[in-house]
């Protein structure tokens, strides 16, 4: 890979962003759809932000469907990347990956797939600090163009980005600050424990960056373990973390985060994650592609994938 050119972030103009938001049907309407129809709305070249973190509340079914539909040239962002990153890279879906960390998990070691793609220059890889990505989503969620922070300065990280970062002295205190550009995804993929048909989403356990990602994105595809009645939402509105007006599609997908965990519903399926790691440990990228053929492309549908890895879907 040759030395890259850095350029200013392609932050959309504020009025264009507002126009995009205004064009969405944000009313209280039934948004339920199928997994394949929801993912079909993602266009090649979109920036897709993934909710959850590492192997917690990963919208795994949604990612699995993206790979099946062979989406191309995506920018993918997720603060900490696990198994799903391997599949998106090996599925040739991604032109640019933005993350702070990439491995199925510490105990499984380095990702052979990620190493193959980055070391051979097959993907534009941007490493940000964990907080930086969070602040970039938050700036977008707040409708401001950047967030000042006190991190990433003094490191080599800004030099290795394709995004050119700016610094400034605080006009009030004189403190040196790094200006993180707002990150506006085209699509956010979020998986939750429960939501109603309008898209009011409630989740338990670690909240991760999901609420910021949802408010930052142009469109939100929500998968949920269970669709509940709007009356139940209105009985506990303080538990709603993403409001209906930010959501565009609602898909009921039991075990939609498997083999990762969904707090209160199921723990991580560590053995199944070991199984995948065995494929890449033996054969690297080719092993990942073998696994993907058997587990992503061959199964008839998501439930067939669950059956294949030995997880019984409810109902």
């Amino acid at each position: 890979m040759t030395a890259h050119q850095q350029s200013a972030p392609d932050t959309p103009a504020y009025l264009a962003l507002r126009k995009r938001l205004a064009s969405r049907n944000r009313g209280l309407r039934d948004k339920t759809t199928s997994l394949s129809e929801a993912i079909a709305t993602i266009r090649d070249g979109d920036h897709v932000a993934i909710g959850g973190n590492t192997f917690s509340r990963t919208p795994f079914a949604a990612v699995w469907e993206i790979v099946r539909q062979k989406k191309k040239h995506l920018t993918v962002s997720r603060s900490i990347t696990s198994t799903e990153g391997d599949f998106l890279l090996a599925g040739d879906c991604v032109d640019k990956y933005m993350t702070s960390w990439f491995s199925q998990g510490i105990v499984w070691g380095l990702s052979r797939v990620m190493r193959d793609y980055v070391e051979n220059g097959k993907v534009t890889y941007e490493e940000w600090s964990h907080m930086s990505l969070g602040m970039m989503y938050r700036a977008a969620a707040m409708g401001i163009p950047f967030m000042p922070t006190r991190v990433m300065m003094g490191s080599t990280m800004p030099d290795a980005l394709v995004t050119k970062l700016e610094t400034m002295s605080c006009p009030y205190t004189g403190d040196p600050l790094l200006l993180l550009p707002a990150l506006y995804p085209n699509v956010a993929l979020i998986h939750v424990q429960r939501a109603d048909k309008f898209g009011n989403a409630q989740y338990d356990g670690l909240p991760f960056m999901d609420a910021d990602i949802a408010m930052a994105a142009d469109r939100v595809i929500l998968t949920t373990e269970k669709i509940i009645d709007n009356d139940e939402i209105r009985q506990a509105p303080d538990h709603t973390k993403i409001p209906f007006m930010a959501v565009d599609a609602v898909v009921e997908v039991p075990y939609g985060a498997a083999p990762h965990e969904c707090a209160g519903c199921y723990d991580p399926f560590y053995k199944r994650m070991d199984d995948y790691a065995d494929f890449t440990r033996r054969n690297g990228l080719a092993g990942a592609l073998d696994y993907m053929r058997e587990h992503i492309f061959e199964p008839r549908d998501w439930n067939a994938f669950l059956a294949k890895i030995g997880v019984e879907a409810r109902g």
Partner: protein
Amino acid sequence: MGKHQATDAYTTSELLSVMCSRVMRDGLIIFAGVGVPLLGATLAQRLNAPSLTILFEGGIIGPFIQPGRLPPSTNEMRTAEKANMLLSPTDVLALLQRGYVDIGFIGGAQIDQYGNVNSSYLGDHRQPSTRLPGSGGGNDIASLAETIVIMPHEKKRFVETVDFITSPGYVAGGQSRAKCGLIAGGVLKVITNLCVFDCHPQTRRLSVSALHPGVKIDAVLDNMGFRPDIPDNIVVSEPPSLEELSILRGIDPTRMYLK
């Protein structure tokens, strides 16, 4: 290993965990990863620091991890065991920026004479020989907190200049850290399986402050790619006690991290 083993029978990660636990005084707020620092913190909580508070970048405030249930990641529900509060990673990392954290712990693949840590790329980042997992919250911790680096004492890891600064220590030494914009925090200690370093108050180079029991200074120097400062007042650390080792082994009975 039996309970009645002599105290010089311990593994590298057991020694590191014990040394780590000893800096964790009661009442401190620490920011930890899941390996040695978590073992050290969990040991300290059970031994003499019951009100030690652990923060994890996954968004967890004040968990109390149960023996045998060590998490394999800082970002999953096992790390939330008996926690006081769950936040987003953005908000828990912002507590570092606000100044709530007394000590942050990080690791990495390489460390240099000024305590800069690399966990991103081996070789030139434009054409790396190895792409590593990356910063995670490492850069945030190193930028914003007094930091302790845990590092296996190996020549390939202790290099004069790291290939890539993921988590800045004292950058190019002297006042350079502050000049880069990092006006708080810095490397407090580097703990290895052979010794403990701190940083010289002016030059900010690594300086040997304590040798682990039975370790000669030559072993420290032979396993480094540069020569650290060697002051006259180097102390020898107390060896891990039977009590420390016994509790530690109970915390990780399947030896997930106690390699």
